[in-house]
Each structure stands twice: as structure tokens, then as C-alpha cells.
């Protein structure tokens, strides 16, 4: 059986309803345990208790990027193989990605206040993230603006493709721009390598939890989209009589 079989909506509905409880349970478990563990970690000698923000900030930031990559893959599958579930999965993932981006931005801003003394700094990394948020917004807005669902899938697919290239391009441009004038603020805190094991393991658990949460939401939302399409199709047929 080829993997493309899962793009068949009926099969997708069946399979997803079978695995959904397990994924959801896993998400709840990992996320709950990871967050509690993270919240109970001791204070850092330098950052104090703000280090606890990391358990939300870092997984959210990672997921925000990964979800865009997943949308890119799903869009490509739709554009090349025209599997509807794939397009709907990309549509379903976008709002989750946008929320993840917002979480990363907000926690980062709140974290920045005690650490750097400012809510927002035009640091390359933060800036690139803001641009990613704009791409999410445009993508979601385009989906909701186009009436014909297949056209919407095509157009958003093309946008996702072009957007990805430009997101990467912007990342480098932004780097160039901020180094051009002065040394990129006091961001050395971000050296991921030197994270102490005390924080490392709960962080990994949180990352896993965020990932499973995303999978759960993705499955549910894709199912919602499929049901909506089916409802619309049946209604249209009814009207025609």
C-alpha cells in the first residue's frame, strides 16, 4: 500500500480516528509532565527564575518554524500529486503555526524585558521571526479570501513555495542589515549548547509535548476541514436537487 493512499479522505478519516486518542494522550502526558518539571526547575545563577520561560519559548519557536516546513511539504504534495487531504492539512496547520509564532514572540518579549532591558530589539533572529509571522498571516488571509477551495489550495501552495524562498532570503538579509551598523545586541545568552542538563531534559520533554500537541491539533483540524468540504458538497448537491 502506497503512502499516497492516505490522501484518500475516507481512508484518512478512518486512520486518523484510530490514532487520534493515542496521540492526544501522548501529547497531554508529555506536555503536562514537561511543563510541570520545567516549572519546578531551580533558578539559574545568572538568569534567575526567567529561565523557566525557556520551556515555552524554545519549543514554540521551533514548532513555528517546523510547521511552516511541514506546510511547504504538504503544499508541494498538493501541487504535484493533487492530493486534497494534503492541501487541507496545510490549511489546518497554518493557524497552529501562527499561534506558535505568537507564543514565541510574546514569551521572547517578556523574557527580553528583564534580560535585555527592552521588550523588543531589532535583532536578526527576532526580526526574521516577525517576518515569518507576516507570512503566516498572508497565507491564512489568502485561504479565507478565495471562494473556490481548489483554487485557494493552488494559490496558497504557490504562495507557500515563493514565501519559503523569501523567508530564507530575508533571514540572511536581516543578518547582514543588523551587523552593518553595530554588533548584534547582547544576545550571547542564546548559545543553545551550554544549556545545563538540569534544564535540558525537561526542555526535551516539552519539545516532544509541543510536537505531539501539534500533531493532535493537525489531525483534528484536518478532519474538521474534510467535514466542512463534505457538508458544502452535499449542500450544493441538495440545492441543485
Amino acid at each position, binding site marked *: 500500500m502506497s503512502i499516497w493512499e492516505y490522501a484518500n479522505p475516507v481512508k484518512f478519516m478512518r486512520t486518523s480516528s484510530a490514532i487520534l486518542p493515542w496521540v492526544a494522550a501522548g501529547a497531554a502526558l508529555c506536555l503536562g509532565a514537561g511543563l510541570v518539571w520545567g516549572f519546578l526547575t531551580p533558578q539559574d545563577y545568572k538568569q534567575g527564575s526567567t529561565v523557566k520561560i525557556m520551556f515555552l519559548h524554545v519549543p514554540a519557536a521551533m514548532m513555528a518554524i517546523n510547521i511552516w516546513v511541514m506546510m511547504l511539504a504538504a503544499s508541494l504534495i498538493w501541487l504535484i500529486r493533487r492530493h486534497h487531504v494534503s492541501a487541507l492539512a496545510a490549511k489546518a496547520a497554518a493557524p497552529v503555526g501562527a499561534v506558535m509564532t505568537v507564543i514565541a514572540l510574546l514569551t521572547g518579549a517578556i523574557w527580553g524585558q528583564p534580560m535585555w532591558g527592552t521588550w*523588543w530589539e531589532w535583532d536578526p533572529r527576532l526580526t526574521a521571526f516577525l517576518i515569518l509571522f507576516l507570512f503566516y498571516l498572508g497565507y491564512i488571509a489568502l485561504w479565507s479570501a478565495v*471562494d473556490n477551495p481548489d483554487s485557494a489550495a493552488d494559490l496558497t501552495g504557490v504562495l507557500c513555495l515563493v514565501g519559503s524562498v523569501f523567508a530564507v532570503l530575508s533571514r540572511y538579509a536581516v543578518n547582514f*542589515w543588523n551587523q552593518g551598523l553595530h554588533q548584534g545586541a547582547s544576545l550571547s545568552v542564546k548559545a543553545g549548547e551550554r544549556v545545563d542538563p538540569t534544564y535540558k531534559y525537561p526542555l526535551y520533554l516539552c519539545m516532544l509535548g509541543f510536537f505531539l500537541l501539534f500533531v493532535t491539533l493537525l489531525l483534528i483540524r484536518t478532519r474538521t476541514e474534510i467535514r466542512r468540504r463534505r457538508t458544502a458538497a452535499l449542500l450544493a448537491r441538495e440545492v441543485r436537487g
Partner: protein
Amino acid sequence: MIALLMRDLRLATRAGGGFGLGLAFFLIVCTLVPFGVGPEGGTLARIAPGILWVGALLACLLSLDRIFALDWEDGSLDLLATAPLPLEGAVLVKAAAHWITTGLPLVLAAPVFGVLLHLPAAAQPWLLVSLGVGTPALSMLGAFGAAITVGLRRGGLLMSLLVLPLYVPTLIFGAEAVRRGAAGADGATPLVFLSGITLAVLATMPFAAAAALRVNLR
């Protein structure tokens, strides 16, 4: 009148209605300016009041052509003009709908963008109040500009030209209030002028706009 207001709000929030796009444009302006100007917090803080007001103004401006152009194209405006509703009332209602869908979200979101541009915290309440008082005037002046250009195909840019000079007093007093606030001074005087402008605009512009519409329908 209520029916018209509800319809416009409903159209704006339906798919393709453009609700929230003004907000997105505002966000974009506030993001682009640092790209152009450079990332230093000090410079940004100095120009933040001006940029925020200019951004809000442009966001308002760009959604103006929705006020009448759509109704013109599909013939609704002909029908509204023959309806038992004074055209002045229709203009006022449509400007109000524009403000609710564009101006109000801008006002509410402005503090966030203020943070992005390093606007001093002391200036935040001034930003909120000055935008809240000033944006209704922007919507009403915009409705006038939209009424003048409604018959022209893609009159969007021409409308910008007509409307922007009308926006200058609002912009000056609004930005001045925020700037004084940022400097820790009292911004009440420009705010009073700003309210005066808004009230005068709301009282007179519906008549001018309705007259322009009648000419264009001819």
C-alpha cells in the same frame, strides 16, 4: 440606517471583506520602517510617534476605496440613491462602518506597535487617546475623498492625493500630542484641537460627500 450599517459590517467580516487587513498593513509599515531606517532603538524611539501616526493614516487610506467603490460597481449606489434614505445619512453610516472595521482595530492595536518601535511607555496613553479621537475624522474625510473619486476606474491613487492634504491637520495635532507625551510633557492642547477638527469634520463632511456622490451618479 441600521440595516445599512449591519450590512456593511457583515460584508467587511465576510470572506474577502478585508476586515483586519488595515491592521495588517499597519503592522507592515511599522516593520518596514526599521528595515529602512536601521535598528537602533534611540532613533526609532525619536521617530516612533510620527511613524505610528503616518502608518495608521496610510492604513486608513488604503481601505477607503471600499467605502463606495464596491457599491458603485455593482450598482448598489444607484439603488441606494433612489432609496428612502437621505444620502447624507448613508454617507455617515458608511463612514461609521469604515471606522468600526478599520479605525477602531488600529486604535486598539497601536500600543503593541508602539512597543515594536520603542515608543516610551509614558506616551502610550497619549497614542491611544489621540488615535481614538483622530481616526473618526480620517474615516469621514476619507469617505469624502472616496465619494469624489467613485466614478473613476481605479481612482485609488488619485483619491490618496485628494485625501492626504486633508489629513495633514489631523496628523500634525495627533502626532504632536504623542510626541509631547513621549517627552513627558502634557499633550492636552493638541488633543483639544484634534477633537475640534474631528467634530467639525463629522458635522459638515457628510453633506459635501453626499453632494459629490450625487454629481458622480449623474
